[in-house]
């Protein structure tokens, strides 16, 4: 892994206008993505994972906008992009995306071949027979059998797993540097999930891709990620290497998230779930957004937003618990159990 960030987000704020009211979906997020790594962004639904990555490609819905902050990529600030022409330089060729639901990601009226070929023609600057040849190669590479026949078929003739392979082929055909996978396996059944994940991993190595994973499946994270960013209420509250976040988590929300892993459950007892609901993003959030649901919350958590405290060079968390003045609080017992499980 290279130490230079390929993509650097600073103090990003994203807002949406919804039925006349303004909602802050991303509340001043900063994160670096490094060349060649796989970064997993985890968090519950509505925490802003997808919105964050959509800003990298200018794909926010029409009612959303970047309020402030910057997204540095290749010497440019993507947050300042206004015209579609600027974005066309980035989309596909530099940053490509794989969506969650392969059943709806492909146009029902065009053959698989034509849809992948569209990307080949656009980004590899070839036409006709050569474009078709390359399309067939990519399709074969992502594990689609009998490509000559499959090339001429429509999406409805493919299974979910096969369609997701096609979507991945389409992304690869763009020859991107960064591949964003927005919950790529959520809509697939478990056996297919493993196949798709290993396909993405293989392609990452082969093409030296930087992969950003969006997921709420911690199993996927453990399998795929070098680094983890935990999001809560539009903010990244903890980042670190996979081991650091799994075995030495610092933020109480990360504790709670890990606590809800079914593997940690005790037979006969109810599985752990986080009490309360996420905060209302229409209102301004004061202090630590997780404080109302956090039994370890300090008084200061309701008053001031915590800054990032570094735990190690690669590991930091946004919680007052790391302030030297805070009382010493031990993480819950199950976090230690997680460590022991790993040791075994």
């Amino acid at each position: 892994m290279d130490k230079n960030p390929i993509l650097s987000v600073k103090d990003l704020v994203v807002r949406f206008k919804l039925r006349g009211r303004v909602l802050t979906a991303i509340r001043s997020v900063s994160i670096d993505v490094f060349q060649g790594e796989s970064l997993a962004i985890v968090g519950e639904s509505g925490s802003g994972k997808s919105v964050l990555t959509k800003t990298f490609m200018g794909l926010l819905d029409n009612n959303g906008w970047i309020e402030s902050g910057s997204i540095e990529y290749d010497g440019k600030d993507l947050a300042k992009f206004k015209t579609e022409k600027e974005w066309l330089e980035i989309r596909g060729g530099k940053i490509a995306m794989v969506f969650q639901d392969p059943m709806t990601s492909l146009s029902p009226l065009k053959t698989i071949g034509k849809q992948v070929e569209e990307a080949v023609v656009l980004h590899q600057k070839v036409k006709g027979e050569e474009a078709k040849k390359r399309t067939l190669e990519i399709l074969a590479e992502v594990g689609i059998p009998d490509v000559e026949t499959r090339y001429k078929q429509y999406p409805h003739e493919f299974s979910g797993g096969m369609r997701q392979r096609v979507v991945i082929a389409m992304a690869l055909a763009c020859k991107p540097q960064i591949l964003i996978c927005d919950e790529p396996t959520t809509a697939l059944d478990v056996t297919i999930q493993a196949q798709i994940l290993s396909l993405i991993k293989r392609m990452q190595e082969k093409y030296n891709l930087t992969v950003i994973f969006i997921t709420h499946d911690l199993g996927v994270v453990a399998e795929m990620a070098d680094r983890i960013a935990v999001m809560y209420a539009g903010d990244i509250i903890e980042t670190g290497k996979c081991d650091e976040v799994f075995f030495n988590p610092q933020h109480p929300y990360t504790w709670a998230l890990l606590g809800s892993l079914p593997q940690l459950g005790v037979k006969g007892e109810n599985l752990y779930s986080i009490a309360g609901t996420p905060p209302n993003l229409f209102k301004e959030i004061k202090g630590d957004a997780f404080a109302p649901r956090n039994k370890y919350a300090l008084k200061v958590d309701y008053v001031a937003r915590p800054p990032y405290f570094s735990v190690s060079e690669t590991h930091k968390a946004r919680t007052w618990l790391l302030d030297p003045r805070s009382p010493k609080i031990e993480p819950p017992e199950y976090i230690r159990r997680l460590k022991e499980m790993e040791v075994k």
Partner: protein
Amino acid sequence: MDMLKYSIGRLLRSLITLFIVLSMVFLLMRLMPVEGYFGARGDNMAPEVKEQILKSLGLLDPWYKQLVSFWGRLLHGDLGESIVYRRGASCASIIGPKIATSFRFGIVSLLIQNIVGLPLGVLMANKKNGVVDKLGNVYILIINAVPAAVYYLLLQLGGSNIFGISMIYRPGDVSTMILPVICLSLGGIATNAMWMRRYMVDQMNMDYIRLAKAKGLSSKKVAFSHVVRNAFIPMAQSLPRSIIFTLAGSLYVESLFSIPGMGALLVTAIQRQDNTLVQAVVLLFSAMSVVSMLLGDIAMVICDPRIKLTSGKGGRV
């Protein structure tokens, strides 16, 4: 091969539908008052003479006998003879030129409806909530909310008072075609624009449109190669119907502008109780509806690869 099989199967089922519909229409016509058959002098006829006339027309036979002979004649292409409208003339000879007139108006207005309506819908969808979209919506709302009779009249009066165009149609004078064609087109433009916009907006929110954008296609390309194609499928089904229905003409517009077309013919035939002629016109209209649905389904199959041809399910009969 699949296509052929599907079309033949679908055609057979359409024929059955047609048979049932035509028989129903024929039998319903038997319930109509019989005064029409006696012509203008009917009031002074002796009952015996009236009975004689009905008997000669075969109208006193039991209904099933009449139905059989009706189908016999129909299979030979005989729609019967007019009684009042033009006594003794075959219905086919009366209807023929009328269809030609209606078709001339209909096809021009159909072209306008599609050439103006569909792009308007596309434009509205592409700039949703923009000025064009808002104005378009106002137009659609007005056309749908105000009874057609009202704006037809306004157009007719306005056209003749302000531009000095003749209020009624004169065959051979092209300028007199302008107002009726506008009247015929306004509704269709609104309908086409409304649905095209709706389908486009639906498609634009689909995942595959976002993915097409994410792979770097410009919005123009996405709109034309993905959105419009998908949005057009539901429109394709209704296209054959609108083509065929140009033949039927418009009851109201044709009466208003005195156009000697099919719509006006039906109105006159009913008013003058020319039962055979009414029957012939209604038969023709029903046949047109059945055939247009058949063509609509076939058009849909051609446009949409997802429709399975072999199962033969899901089509309308």
